[in-house]
């Protein structure tokens, strides 16, 4: 990871004298504690989504009553909302680059843009769920409804938490409490945000695009 060391905040924390994580104590791996922790969390979260996706794939195409994926999906619509989410990863990168340059104005713009794009995605998901419900697909309708709503619902919850996180950072930034020395805070949020995006790409591919073999 080619991330530059941020200058220490003032008052300078005595390096390595803290048991905790502030400043950037030298670590054995060279990765800061927080960054290592978020990577571990994301690795753990992979199995969370992996288990739900496995359940979806296991049950895909089983005989059942009620609406099938082909009857409810609108691939063009979901493609657009997926694209929006993908673009939010780009704005997230721009936000991180901005704070690393010390450009706090652009940081605020890109953070807000990312949160907005995420909100558009969530809006799209709410619209999609409502449409599906009108077409007669509920949580309890059939296996498709069960596995689809629970999987995408938990993904939506992850995105929502991400949006709240980004907005919190944006709020700090507007109060000038997010300084270039805090670049790592943005980077951590970014790692989470990119992860949630990648999970969506996997879901979109496996759940929406690849038709059941039957």
């Amino acid at each position, binding site marked *: 990871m080619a991330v530059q060391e941020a200058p220490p905040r003032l008052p300078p924390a005595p390096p390595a004298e803290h048991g905790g994580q502030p400043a950037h104590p030298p670590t054995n791996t060279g990765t800061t504690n927080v960054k290592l922790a978020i990577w571990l969390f994301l690795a*753990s979260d992979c199995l969370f989504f992996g288990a739900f996706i496995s*359940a979806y794939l296991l049950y895909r195409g089983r005989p059942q009553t009620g609406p099938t994926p082909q009857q409810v999906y609108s691939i063009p619509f979901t493609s657009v909302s997926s694209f929006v989410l993908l673009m939010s990863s780009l704005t997230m990168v721009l936000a991180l680059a901005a704070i690393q340059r010390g450009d706090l104005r652009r940081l605020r713009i890109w953070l807000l843009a990312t949160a907005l794009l995420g909100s558009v995605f969530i809006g799209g998901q709410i619209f999609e769920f409502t449409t599906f419900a009108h077409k007669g697909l509920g949580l309890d309708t059939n296996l498709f409804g069960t596995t689809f709503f629970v999987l995408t619902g938990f993904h939506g919850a992850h995105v929502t938490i991400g949006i709240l996180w980004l907005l919190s950072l944006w709020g700090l930034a507007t109060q000038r409490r997010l300084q270039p020395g805090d670049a790592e805070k943005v980077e951590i949020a970014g790692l989470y945000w990119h992860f949630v995006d990648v999970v969506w790409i996997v879901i979109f591919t496996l759940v929406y695009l690849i038709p059941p073999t039957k």
Partner: protein
Amino acid sequence: MTTATETATPVPVRAPVILRRPTSTTGFWSWFSTVDHKKIGIMYGGTALIFFAIGGIEALLIRLQLAQPNGTVLTASQYNQIFTMHGTTMIFLLGMPLSVAFANYLIPLMIGARDVAFPRLNAFGYWGFVLGGVFLYSSFLLGGAPNGGWFGYTPLTSTPLGLGALPGRGPDFWTVGIVMLGIASTTSAINIIVTVLNMRAPGMTLMRMPVFVWMMLVTFFLTLFAMPIITVAMIMVFFDRNFGTSFFLATKGGDPLLYQNLFWLFGHPEVYILILPGMGIVSEVLPVFSRKPLFGYPVVVFSGIAIGFLGWGVWAHHMFTTGLGPVAVSAFSLSTMLIAIPTGVKIFNWLATVWKGAIKLTTSMLYALGFIAMFTIGGLSGVSLAVVPADTQQHDTYFVVAHFHYVLFGGLVFGLFAGFYYWYPKVFGRMLDERLGKISFWMMLVGFNVTFFPMHLLGIFGMPRRIYTYNNGLGWNTLNLIITCGAFVIALSVLIFFVNLIVSHKRGQIAGNDPWDARTIEWSISSPPPEYNFAEIPEIDSRDDFWHRKYTEDDAGLLVPLPSGGSDTPAATRAAASPGHRIHMPSPSFFPLIAALALPILGYAAVFHSFGWSFALLAVGVLVLVFGVYAWAMEPAAAPEEAH
């Protein structure tokens, strides 16, 4: 990197704090705000021992009920709740948190760190565990305790309440409680992995780490990856029970066995999560009391890692009778036999460690030796269960109950007891009473075998598990009575241990820094250690660094003491030179506790979601969570220096 002028003028932190930041590190309230890994470790240990006592009382009730045929001590409904809670307690509220207790207290001391990587997250994990346990036990008063077994097979547990597969709200409490405990243990896992990977003292390379630290590292990697799977399984069960989904509903095409696959994909690594800490502890204890290095350190470490990997490939051996088909069954039979190999290697390496040693039979050493012997029996009965045709006879009988108690009680609990006797002096500065210790060890060894060995025979005589009653005339009566007697011997032994813990805390012999002539660096500092652990971060030159500062080997490989002071100044001496008052430690905080408080509130809101008032509870829970998390995030890890 540009240095913007904005950085030069830091904005003072306007902490949105309602509660004044606690500063005291002593006194009653300090226990609620502490972020000191040693205090949290003690709290984990104390709480887990309370749950150990509760789970033990449940075990005694089970044994009273089964002492005779057609027992009337408990009703069927009570028995089913109690055996479920016994298993759930011993695994989630004793085994895992007690391992976390040891890890929390010892890992920073053993790798030469001042604290864990995330002190407040550590406190959050502890409070999540306590509140999760309290939440689970509150079910006894709020509509029935969990009664689907600790494994909670669907569709028994996932059938909605109104359809009557199981009486009561038990499975709702169980699923939500396990998710809460899962969140807590995931935070501890992340914390400890980061601590081990990132915060080792200079020179403490991975292959110089004590085996205990290694085994804990593997344990917490397993926790990290196993917990999300059980979380998903619990979410599915909860949704099936409450929101009409059909994950495990056969009549809508769902597959009840999907649950078993998910559960055991978590559940088998979980077995290694429980046993690896025990293996780590005896790998420390045996060399110290044999005055020999661990035989084949790299092999012990790598076989631990191998167990960690292979542990993911054996889950379906819990499902040999479910109709997987002969090919799948054969494959899992082979993988299960494969995992016996690294386990066997460890046993032989431990045996070789004590071989030709200068063995001192302290209570700790007795437990460690008992671990080898008892765990071997559990391992061998495990191999017999891997023989699938035999498993179709022994599965779900008392043979299996015997097997996993030899592994988890003879293994984990004996290991943890070895650890208690070994590290108690470091933690409390006083020795545990050896005479009481030895009495309780021999009672434990005898009681344990009287209790669990006859269970092998009961299984062979055809007694299934999880039955609250049995008929006369099946040849089970005498064995069951013997087992019940044995259980009370164990209980007495544990009681003596508790007395020992309490009495020695006040009256035990003063330990000094290094009462055992030990090998690892936690023994180089005072007992109990100062808040900052090491006045000066030690520099590590070798495996068993502290030992090599005390001893060297002559040409024949015999042990030669070095002159006092050693080749280098030990950390302890250096510690005395600098009293350490300038060391700035993370400050106490109430916010981890507040954030954790949101978990049971949200949990009750979920369990009682069909009642209108649950929305109020939900709102309160979300508010508490948001407040806790934001206040925590805004609060600096350590209060500014001026505050002192």
